[in-house]
């Protein structure tokens, strides 16, 4: 009995409210999931500010600077869009795979293979040097997607046939892809001994806004290229597939319960291979767009880890293809600003904190927070 009394007196001194987490007994409200994404970004920015402050900087000035150099003028907005373009495509690549709980972290390798496939059209060459621009671009896009899809097909088949863990296989294949590219830029297509291929001829370049500067003056110096249209188009198509088609439903069903999907007659193995190929093709298209729209040659440093950033973007967008566009623009700005505020590393820190916050925030989708007033005896 005495034990009870001790506890009660201790309780009397305690704060009159306490927080309790309960399992949700109904679906979380629709606005909660996007809100959590926004909160994750805000937390990341606040933590970033704290670090800048500790390091002796002025957080407000730094953020102001970042904002100015990513959205401050038409020119930098265009640069942000250039950065966002490959991110949208790899973000989509990760989203469709993650929808089926296929943890494809090989977007980076699929990106490099896509770049390789696109370069092949110019360098092998697949097309004569003076082929028309539309033919070059469409062939390069198809080759980029095919090679990316191939890089998704292999781990997909291994997973479907032998249940090989796709996390390991896709990660390993990233290294193969990068070394594969290195072999070609060092040995086969090297430009006078440099570790890069020759510059592509103009008709293999994606059209840029600045190409139309003669007609519309505002476009002069803007490097945003047609890859952005590819990316937005891909996002809309993917959204349609996931929300409005039977295939999208199958992906949802397999993602949630493969055994139920099998019981409903959905072919799981075939879908694993197919989704991995689509995922690879999207990442491959990102590689093509970067090669043909920005770099204009095949070289080593074509990706500052786009494939991995795509994973964070997919989570931030909660695997929604249209939200991937917004998340990619934010990350495009962060990458761009990274150059401006280097070497502080703050943008990378912010990316990391966003990822951690997002993973942690899933808790709130499962649990309900209640503030309870302690009842006085």
């Amino acid at each position: 009995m005495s034990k009870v009394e001790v506890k009660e007196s201790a309780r009397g001194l305690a704060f009159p409210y306490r927080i309790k987490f309960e399992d949700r007994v109904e679906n979380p409200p629709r606005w909660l999931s996007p809100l959590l994404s926004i909160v994750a970004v805000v937390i990341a920015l606040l933590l970033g500010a704290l670090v800048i402050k500790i390091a002796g900087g002025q957080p407000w000035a730094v953020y102001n600077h970042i904002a100015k150099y990513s959205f401050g003028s038409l020119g930098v907005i265009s640069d942000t869009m250039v950065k966002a373009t490959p991110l949208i495509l790899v973000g989509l690549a990760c989203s469709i795979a993650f929808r089926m709980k296929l943890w494809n972290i090989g977007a980076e390798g699929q990106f490099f293979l896509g770049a390789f496939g696109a370069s092949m059209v110019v360098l092998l060459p697949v097309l004569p040097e003076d082929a028309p621009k539309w033919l070059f671009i469409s062939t390069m896009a198809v080759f980029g997607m095919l090679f990316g899809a191939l890089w998704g097909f292999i781990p997909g088949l291994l997973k479907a046939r032998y249940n090989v863990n796709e996390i390991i296989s896709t990660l390993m294949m990233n290294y193969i892809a990068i070394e594969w590219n290195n072999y070609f830029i060092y040995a086969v297509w090297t430009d006078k001994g440099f570790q890069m291929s020759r510059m592509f001829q103009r008709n293999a370049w994606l059209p840029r806004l600045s190409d139309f500067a003669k007609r519309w003056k505002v476009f002069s110096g803007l490097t945003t290229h047609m890859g952005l249209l590819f990316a937005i188009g891909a996002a809309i198509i993917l959204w349609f597939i996931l929300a409005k088609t039977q295939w999208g439903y199958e992906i949802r069903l397999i993602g949630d319960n493969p055994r139920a999907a099998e019981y409903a007659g959905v072919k799981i193995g075939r879908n694993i291979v197919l989704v991995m190929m689509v995922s690879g093709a999207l990442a491959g298209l990102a590689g093509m767009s970067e090669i043909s729209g920005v770099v204009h040659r095949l070289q080593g440093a074509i990706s500052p880890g786009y494939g991995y950033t795509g994973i964070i973007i997919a989570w931030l967008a909660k695997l929604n293809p249209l939200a991937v566009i917004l998340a990619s623009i934010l990350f495009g700005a962060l990458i761009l600003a990274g150059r401006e505020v280097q070497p502080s590393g703050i943008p990378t820190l912010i990316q990391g904190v966003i990822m951690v916050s997002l993973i942690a925030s899933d808790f709130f989708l499962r649990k309900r927070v209640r503030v309870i007033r302690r009842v006085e005896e």
Partner: protein
Amino acid sequence: MDEERSENGFENVVSMRGITKRFPGVLANDKVDFDLRKGEVHALLGENGAGKSTLMNVLAGLYRPEEGTIRLHGKVVEFGSPREAIEEGIGMVHQHFMLVPSQSVTENILLGLKEPRFRMQLPKYNQIIGEMAGKFGLHVDPAAKVWQLSVGEQQRVEILKMLYRGADVLIMDEPTAVLAPTEISELFNTLRSMTEQGKSVVFISHKLHEVMDISDRVTVLRKGKVTSSGLNTGDVTRADLAHLMVGRDVVFQVEKSEAHAGDMVLSVEELEAKNDKGLPALNGISLNVRQGEIVGLAGVAGNGQKELAETLAGLRPVTKGRILVNNQDVTNKPVKLGIRHGISLIPADRTQVGTAPNLSVTDNVIMKNYDQAPIGSNGLLNMSEAENYAEDLKLAFDIMVPTIDTSVRLLSGGNLQKVILAREISSEPKLMIAVQPTRGLDVGAIEGVQKLLLAQRNAGAAILLISEELEELLSLSDRIYVIYEGEIMGEIRDNDINKIGMMMTGTRLEQIEGEGVARNE
């Protein structure tokens, strides 16, 4: 000690007064009173969703009530967590065990306690726990790893965990649901020896015969309210309790019209298949089901019933033999072809196989016809058609959900089964394979499911009912096959329980009849 004594001189260990607990859209407990006397087994009876588990979760500190008070030995208490409740001697054993498989029994019991501090001193604690187990007849080896234990033994570990933490009040949430019959009688012995030693037990159940067997008193809940409080079990009959529980007289015998068996729908010839471990599970099964009849398949669990159901639905490869549905060979054909031929399977496992837990009710009811007009056409999915369809089924089958967008993992067992039945029945199957369709459901829901199956039969479907509940098989089936180690022991048309019992343990019908003839001669 300020003990509260009720009018007739019994000592109330726990008394709960006016407990009200709300969940969004549901009043789970509505001003519920509950008393527990020292040394009794008090059954808490009610249908699924009546609020039994909620009430006890309140007592065990898992939920906080919106209103009401709990007195323990006459003193008002309030628990913020299960840990606070167990400190006061109230322990609950949940339906789902919370044990670490790779650790020993003793390690599991000591987990989370302050003593032993750093050195585990396992031999010493093995002995202490062994003695405690012996005292209550909880036979389990303290040094055994949990993964090696049967479900019944794991339950004993959970009980020991609570006893070791000093529980005087033990709440058992549907403890028999996972147990084999022999384990149930052992559990009952344990509960009795606990009450003899002054502990009190709350026994949550919806199984009438168990309540009659084990409890001293019964409190019945219906829709969150007490319909009868603290009845002496000796003074009531099963029928009384059933009435209090569902609010109307339950017909234990289902009314069934004469079967009008028509054309052959399912014909299985010398079927062989392997189980998940690659060992033979079906060894030459032959059986048939006609239009408009329910054919039962009786047998002790694990004799090939699961594998048979899966091979019929196309989910498991056939190694030998044939399956004919309406004279078409569907052996080793894709699952989808079976669905198109009108084969419908109600799987035994509702959450692992029958539904996709995080998807909505809508997504779950269209699982079999998402690629059929009007919901699916030309590769597209018409979500508004799907939603209309789900709304219709929700009404027709009385599925209790706030909206059809609700994830099915939030549904109760009975409602989940309704979702599955709604989906399978609305596809107007020609052959329905129902595996344990009423397992874990309460009396009212069982009756509903059985009526639906009979209605299907009367509408001309061929139904293969695979069940381990003999009573259910006898009342629903027009004839019964008995399966033993992947072979059919024979077919019974006269509901002879003795014969079925012998066949379930491996005697062929010919042998039984042969002996009968021999004896007569």
